[in-house]
């Protein structure tokens, strides 16, 4: 049996748990507890360890979906999770105080995966908070010498989560095809 890891990362409230729930075939295993940081985030609960979901593939293979804890005090876990991961989906809440800084932090944390074209950035709440625009996110990534697709999403819609996966997969295939040519 083969296992593949797909990572959902981003700050508290960015929608990691919701995105995993949209595609997992099992009810996501959540480890939410009462959020003690209510002044900064309105969520009543938050993930302190991992969110987990899975998708069974042919021959018993598994696609394991991991949602990293939002708080940076758990960042030791990010590196462990990223080893051998198929890809990473960075979720950004555009209503957060500094969404560009959030993206930079996660792109930097998962730089190896991002550099090998196995990442995508999904920006949420763009309708109510259109600034910064998608162009600004792309520019910020470019300043970090990274090229990554950035798109506005609403993770409550399953089709948006699937679109992120589709873009991620096409990227992986293109990168592998180019590698094979070189």
């Amino acid at each position, binding site marked *: 049996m083969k296992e593949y890891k797909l990572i959902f990362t981003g700050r508290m409230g960015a929608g990691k748990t919701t995105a995993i729930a949209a595609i997992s075939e099992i009810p996501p295993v959540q480890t939410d507890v009462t959020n003690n940081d209510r002044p900064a985030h309105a969520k009543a609960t938050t993930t302190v360890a991992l969110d987990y979901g899975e998708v069974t593939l042919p021959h018993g293979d598994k696609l394991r979906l991991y949602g990293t804890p939002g708080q940076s005090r758990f960042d030791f876990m990010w590196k462990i999770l990223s080893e051998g991961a198929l890809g990473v989906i960075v979720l950004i809440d555009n209503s957060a105080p500094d969404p560009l800084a959030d993206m930079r932090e996660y792109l930097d944390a998962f730089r190896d995966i991002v550099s090998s074209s196995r990442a995508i950035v999904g920006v949420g709440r763009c309708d109510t908070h259109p600034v910064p625009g998608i162009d600004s996110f792309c520019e910020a990534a470019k300043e970090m010498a990274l090229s990554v697709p*950035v798109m506005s999403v609403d993770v409550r819609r399953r089709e948006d989560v699937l679109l992120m996966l589709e873009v991620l997969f*096409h990227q992986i295939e293109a990168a592998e095809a180019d590698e094979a040519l070189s």
Partner: protein
Amino acid sequence: MSAMLSTRRVAVSGARLRSELLFRSMLRVSNTRTQDTWTFCDASNEADVVLCGNGTPNEAVPRKSGAKQILVDLSDLDTRVSGEKLRLNEPIRITDVIALLDAASSRLAQRARPQAEPQPARAENGSFAFALALRDLFANGSPDVHGIEANDQVLYVIPASRSFFTTESADDEETVSRLLLSAQAAKTAQLKRHQIRELEQSGALPKPINALLWRAGHEGSQGRLLPGLGESDRFHLKRWPDFGKLSHTPGELRLTPYLVRAPRTLDELETIGKISRAEVCAYINACALLDLIEVKAPVSQVGSVIAKTEPVVVKEKRKVFSGVLGSIRAILGI
């Protein structure tokens, strides 16, 4: 906007620098009060009106093709239009300049009508003309409000902020559809201050233009590339379009990562995306309207050979990756 404004150009040929500067200054002052919008251009063969310097023979002035042009002789300060004269007396006052330009506007409009002959089929394509009009407007990044009119519909755009609006009563989708379906070429013009005030009072709110440009690029292409994009050029995508907001096809999703990674020819894109040449052109045009495309020099035959071998290599590599991605797609219904 009941009567559509035109943007017209005025040039100076053979005049003293002082006269040219004087007229440029007056043009700047008069421009909010003239019937049309006037801009200064350096090439007299592109101008609607040419101010000819003292003693400059008319035949020495490079003429605009199609002859829709008025020469103003600064030596006797009158205009020569089909034998009629519009006199300007010294010292020239701003009201005289406005009168001169408005008279020229009327003459140009009158002259344009009899010349409205059937256009060649390609030029008649209103949707392509609409895409072109948008491209030209957004290329200059003007902070002014411009109106695009065709088929009794007007769309207002602000290139600098990449936004657009329609009048409060108009439905955006309907307006754009009618503009795209128009059999006439779209007319564009910069709005006057009082027209902008009227629009503001009507409660019209600017909206992001990207989805509209995207649609114009797709629907206005008609199987060909916009001017400035060559069939033999290679195209490079600066970044991914925001597919979360912009409609797209599976083929466009397939070819986008390749376009982002390296410049590609139309032939390569057809092969990679498994889509027709017309669909590739539509996608490239749409990306170009969003300023996402970089055009690179055409490739040599060697480059084409590499492109033709690519699908074989992709297939080989997919033994490792495509299997699992295909399985995930199948399970999730992507």
